[in-house]
């Protein structure tokens, strides 16, 4: 266990940035999101939840897959170069780290998504334990401990100090690189903090949310429930929940004509959109109820069915905070709970 004064963190950022890209929560125009660290960046470790999850460090909202270029009637195809430089993501919370674990199940299973895999190989995750959990948090429901996140390095903020504990080889390597910035620390302080966080978490309004009835079996039992017809009504069919979600992984592949060629890129898509997976004959899911059901059934039934019971919700509560209609996964889970 090591520690560094929070006042010295800029030196730490600068050191990391000397040799690799550093992504961390940056405040810009009133909102905090993960962004590339730059000298004048306003780093914000106090805001519990960034608007977007840090998933787009590994799975960018848009990324070019390859480019086509036509000259003299001949077509050349240039694949986009894969990420080949190490980088660090600093300040990921427990739920977001678990979000990456969910994405790993999708993108790292065969066939492996090489773009994602390259970023995972080169990225070092420095997780940060939650300081002040929010009303909308319910990560514990999914077995996540916000006081002790997973990650290559785990950190805690205690008073004027950041405690640093490397967990993996990547974490040790990063720690070695930065070693002179740290001083040794006492684990007991961190343990106190963990206890305090866990005490708060217990008091959270959604701490007792029951997932009973969800999981693989829900695919059969809950698909045809009339509750969906009621639940979806306020849904505006926007993609806010999807785009702030740390686990949503659907994307669309499109071509962009740059004038001198075509860039084939992929970008996040939302199953809430009416043009999601649009085909010549129309949509697979013709009504918003179906689209709405899909999103929650996927998180709570289909995904666990295919991934050893792991839910593809991590309880970060972003959708709870951001839905324009105050509709969210908690209300969905509770609505079925009531029915039971």
């Amino acid at each position, binding site marked *: 266990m090591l520690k560094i004064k929070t006042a010295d963190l800029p030196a730490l950022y600068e050191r990391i940035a000397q040799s690799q890209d550093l992504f961390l929560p940056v405040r810009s125009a009133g909102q905090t999101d993960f962004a590339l660290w730059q000298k004048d960046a306003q780093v914000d470790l106090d805001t519990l939840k960034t608007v977007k999850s840090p998933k787009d460090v590994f799975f960018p909202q848009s990324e070019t897959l390859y480019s086509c270029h036509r000259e003299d009637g001949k077509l050349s195809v240039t694949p986009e170069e894969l990420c080949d430089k190490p980088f660090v993501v600093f300040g990921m919370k427990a739920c977001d780290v678990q979000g990456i674990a969910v994405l790993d199940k999708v993108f790292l299973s065969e066939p492996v998504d090489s773009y994602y895999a390259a970023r995972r190989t080169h990225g070092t995750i420095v997780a940060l334990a939650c300081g002040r959990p929010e009303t909308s948090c319910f990560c514990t429901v999914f077995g996540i401990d916000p006081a002790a996140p997973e990650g290559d390095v785990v950190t805690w903020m205690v008073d004027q100090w950041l405690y640093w504990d490397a967990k993996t080889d990547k974490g040790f390597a990063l720690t070695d690189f930065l070693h002179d910035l740290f001083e040794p620390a006492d684990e007991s302080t961190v343990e106190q903090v963990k206890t305090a966080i866990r005490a708060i978490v217990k008091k959270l309004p959604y701490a007792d949310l029951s997932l009973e009835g969800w999981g693989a079996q829900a695919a059969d039992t809950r698909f045809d429930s009339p509750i969906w017809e009621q639940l979806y009504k306020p849904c505006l069919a926007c993609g806010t929940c999807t785009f702030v979600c740390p686990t949503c992984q659907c994307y669309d592949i499109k071509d962009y004509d740059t004038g001198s060629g075509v860039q084939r890129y992929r970008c996040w898509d939302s199953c809430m959109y009416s043009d999601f997976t649009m085909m010549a004959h129309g949509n697979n899911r013709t009504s918003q109820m179906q689209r709405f059901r899909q999103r929650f059934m996927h998180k709570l039934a289909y995904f666990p069915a295919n991934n050893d019971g792991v839910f593809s919700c991590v309880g970060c509560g972003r959708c709870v905070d951001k839905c324009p209609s*105050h509709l969210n996964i908690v209300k969905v889970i509770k609505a079925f709970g009531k029915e039971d």
Partner: protein
Amino acid sequence: MQELITRAKALLESGEVQRVLGWKQGEHIYDPEPAFFDSAEALKDFVYNGFCGANLSKYMIEAAKLEGKTLVFLKPCDSYSFVQLMKEHRVDREKAHIIGVGCKGKLSVNKIDADGILDIQGAGYPDCADTLTVDTLYGQTTVSYKDAMLERCHVCKGKEHMVCDEQIGESADTADSDRFAQVAAIEAMSPEEKFAFFQSELSKCIRCNACRNVCPACSCRKCVFDSTKFDSTQKANTTSFEEKMFHIIRAFHVAGRCTDCGECSRVCPQGIPLHLFNRKFIKDINSLYGEYQAGVDAQAKAPLTSFTQEDAEPSIVAEGGLTHA
């Protein structure tokens, strides 16, 4: 609130209306959701408080396709949107029973700058307090009602309902700032400052389409940005251009139709002040073509579907004739 429920029950029970469109109690006081109530029994979850900011007009497009009448509660500012939708033949006035519900300003939970909010006292209707008492996981705090109000309530269009069958509850005109002050402040900037301002705001955009989908004016069956007819179906978030294209065109498409209900800014997950685009057009329209408030009169000629021979030339922009006006 009880009065609303009583009236809704009566209308349901008399068969006058088939359903009620209102707001439903959420998990907390600050997260009520728009909801259809089919029975008097269901109305037990009905709620109307300071957090019922959602404009229900747009849901009336779907309601118009249903059998029978729908009772809808519209706040004064929501009623403008309904009139505009009437003008565009998107809602059926005959199939709506409109209760104009009073409003004393709606609240934004985001503006209550507190972590771990559990409950808020003083946000009820009609009894609201000048000061809200906020219980949080980390203790109690207070915030004045005014400071917690949505941006749009500070430029409230007034207490009048533009359309309704009956009215329940008192309203307060909560306007306390100049509707166009923010626009004028940007107009006064240098081009570089303007560009930097919008660049930093729009770069936050995640293309979630919440602003579009909540907007009662953006009620197209299929948005141009989702249609293949314009080759404009980009969803990329790679360059700064697409957000500009999207927000400029969206504002242009609702120019002269936007009632300035402020829903776009309310719902933006990134807190982008999207109303500035619409309000810029409203300001320009007012100064160029005469005062026009969309949603007042369903028969009025809209600014972009009418003209006069003496209209200003587009060169007025380069000549600076539209700034600081």
